[in-house]
């Protein structure tokens, strides 16, 4: 598995798309830092980009990579290698290459501005780690989609739909339900509902660093306990790990059953 991961990674890191992705983050972070001295403002802008872009790129790039490397995958399948190793290796390679682009693209400018030595290092860490989480989760979903659908058009369509669902539609329905049910106690409901969307979870993790004072404004006992203590971060973190593991495990299940 590690060997496959290594080769996928070295292939992707040299690909045009990987470089464009890295360049985009470099340029974005540099210009944000240059234009605005306020680091927390930069973190917020980056947060919006990461929460939207990382899932989109991961899911699209994942589906694309899977379809493009299909023949090569067949070559690997004929080698004496476990199937799970092949797909997990490719998945890890993809997710790692995306994460690496993100880490370098944001990390280098931050280093350059000497912010890693400052108190902002924690914000940076949370930002990047949620980005990494999202890259893993959505490339896992991409592999799942691509494994299930041999039809490329369908695969790409589903990938976009999955992204749109988690990035926009889910929150819209969520908000609507909160407005409609506002007569009822909704604390448990809203926390659970947020758990089912990795993008919301990541956002909450960042908010717990940036906007905790606003989140504490609503202090029903449940929110207060969830947000005010370490519970919120720990639980969000744990569920994000689950969000990584479940697609990864589904990839294995599909991979073991699939014909090539």
């Amino acid at each position, binding site marked *: 598995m590690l060997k496959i991961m290594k080769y996928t990674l070295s292939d992707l890191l040299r690909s045009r798309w990987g470089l464009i992705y890295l360049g985009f983050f470099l340029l974005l972070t540099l210009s944000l830092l240059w234009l605005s001295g306020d680091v927390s403002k930069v973190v917020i802008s980056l947060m919006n980009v990461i929460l939207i872009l990382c899932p989109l790129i991961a899911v699209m790039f994942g589906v694309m990579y899977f379809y493009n490397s299909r023949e090569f995958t067949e070559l690997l399948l004929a080698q004496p290698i476990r199937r799970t190793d092949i797909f997990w290796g490719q998945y890890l390679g993809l997710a790692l290459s995306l994460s690496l682009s993100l880490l370098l693209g944001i990390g280098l400018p931050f280093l350059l501005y000497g912010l890693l030595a400052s108190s902002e290092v924690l914000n940076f860490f949370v930002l990047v780690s949620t980005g990494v989480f999202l890259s893993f989760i959505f490339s896992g979903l991409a592999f799942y989609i691509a494994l299930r659908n041999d039809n490329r058009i369908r695969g790409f369509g589903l990938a976009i739909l999955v992204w749109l669902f988690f990035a926009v539609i889910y929150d819209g329905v969520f908000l609507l339900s909160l407005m409609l049910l*506002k007569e009822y106690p909704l604390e448990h409901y809203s926390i659970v509902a947020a758990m089912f969307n990795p993008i919301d979870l990541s956002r909450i993790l960042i*908010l717990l660093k940036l906007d905790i*004072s606003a*989140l504490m404004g609503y202090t029903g006992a449940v929110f207060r306990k969830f947000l005010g203590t370490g519970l919120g971060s720990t639980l969000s973190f744990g569920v994000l790990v689950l969000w990584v593991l479940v697609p990864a495990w589904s990839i294995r299940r599909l991979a073991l059953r699939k014909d090539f």
Partner: protein
Amino acid sequence: MKTRLMRIYIVILFLGIGALGLRAGTVNVCADCPVKTIKEGIRQAQAGDVVLIGSGLYAEGNIVVDKPLTLRGVNYPVIDGQLTEEAFTITADSVTIEGLKIQNSGHNQLKDLAAIRVQRTKGYIIRSNILLNSYFGIYLEYAGAGEVYGNTIIGQAVTEANAGNAIHAWYVQGVNISHNFLKGHRDGIYLEFVTHSFIHDNHSTGNVRYGLHYMFSNDDAYYCNTFDHNGAGVAVMFSKRIVMTDNYFEHNWGRASYGLLLKEITDADIARNAFVSNTVGIMLEGASRIRYQNNQFKSNGWAVQVTGGCEDNNFIANNFLSNALDLVINGRLNSNTFDGNYWSEYNGYDLDRDGRGDVPHRPVKLFSYIISQSPESIILLRSFFVDLLNFSEKVSPALTPDNVLDNMPLMEEAQWAVGSRR
């Protein structure tokens, strides 16, 4: 107003010199001295004498200081009220109490017991004492000018109901409360019917209700204080002409929690304060004719919340930096102005290079309305969908008041000379 303040200073100075001049005799109180109790020391002392209290433990209470004396502790002698009695009651003018450690004074919710009570006097100086586990710490009633300086008052309050205030003033004129450290009480400082008083350089933290609390008090000033981790930083209620400058409000969190709560007050001046990481920076309820200038609002949940009945609040040259929501205004009528502030969320441009944005800024967002309808939706703060909603509302306002505008937002943060502490 300035001359009035000067006059109070002069009075205090005069009283201080007077006390020094009168210092004739000294009565020593200690375990090995002929005089073994503080009460006995006071009984033997003449007006103007110094009662020197040696280090040790004095299990005394209900000590009445009824002549102008200086009670001075050596190496912080401990006066233990055994949770039943008040330690000192000052009934004479020109009494000084300093260098004492007073602990476990009586707790009684009916009688409002205090460690040091000042009753109908003036010229008192309560300085550099340590008050631990009191119900009320220092209780001033019907007092004139005096000074409460450099005391450390730490209580163990958990709920509002069974706790007193660290410093409590009731019908007091011209008190100067400064450089105190106040923690673990109901309110750090509570002022009711207090006028012409100065509260400065205090640090009020971890109090259950308010760091500083004004009720029915006029013509006062507080400055250079720090209020953090209190239920709410400062509450100014039913008061007029309060000057609030150079204070630091941080990390006052909770559902009903504010850096500064203004309720039914008029004609205040609020300048050069910093509001950092509070649930609400300033909450206005029935607050009118107030000028807000050069305040820093940073990383608060809501920088400013304006509810009904607030008129003529003028925000000038303040900085709104990275707050979750800058401004919430309930009620459609608005005679408040927000021109010429710096908003870190402003994304307009300044083509004519006059330092002012060329398009007006709209500080009120749709999402703040949604939150007021359904508080749980705060969990969707900064989500892409909410950004889309806010954007569409910004383009064509339907629910937010369209006259709440900053017509000339600053392009750079406003600068000013900082106060003595921050």
